[in-house]
């Protein structure tokens, strides 16, 4: 079935280091992926997206990598800051519906 899941539930990084958050998806027909950030008590906030005809996309301090061969998605955050502490979700667009993974907690240590 269509499902999106994350390998690591919690990631702790030192401030200034790079963070890598991973995500596996199961629907090989998926053609659009999004990363969301959710801070405590708030709704998810869009970070970056990527279409299946790309394998890399860069934003401001963030990069998303897509490996369709192994159905794997990753979010890289450069120079991680305390404000990056949040839960990060990958989501896969299946038809008109976004399917969310369980999320990864990112904790930034100062």
């Amino acid at each position, binding site marked *: 079935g269509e499902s*999106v899941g994350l390998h690591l539930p919690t990631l702790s990084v030192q401030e200034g280091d790079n963070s890598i958050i991973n995500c596996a998806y199961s629907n090989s027909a998926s053609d659009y992926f999004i990363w969301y950030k959710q801070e405590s008590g708030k*709704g*998810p906030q869009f970070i970056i997206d990527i279409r299946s005809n790309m394998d890399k996309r860069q934003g401001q301090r963030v990069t998303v990598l897509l490996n369709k061969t192994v159905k794997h998605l990753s979010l890289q955050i450069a120079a991680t800051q305390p404000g990056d502490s949040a839960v990060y979700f990958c989501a896969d667009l299946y038809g008109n519906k976004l*399917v*969310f*993974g369980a999320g990864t907690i990112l904790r930034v240590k100062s």
Partner: protein
Amino acid sequence: NAGVTQTPKFRILKIGQSMTLQCTQDMNHNYMYWYRQDPGMGLKLIYYSVGAGITDKGEVPNGYNVSRSTTEDFPLRLELAAPSQTSVYFCASSTNDRDNEQFFGPGTRLTVL
């Protein structure tokens, strides 16, 4: 623009009570969505709408109803509240295109006792 607004922010219901969660967006988005998020979990789609007068079931529609009489509003109705519906509910909207960013509201925290 206020974006996506939701009311109420918090609500406690007794088993069997009913209520409507309100959602409004002022971005003229055709697509609107309702999700629920259980503690420590991702979001699950309850219902969605691709335009006024059109609604479709998501992954977990049982126990809920929706309507979409206007582009701006997408209320979610719980008819007979059950403890399993204790969750945080998020409304979202997106533009006409299929693969576009969804904008989320701040959420409604519902507890059913």
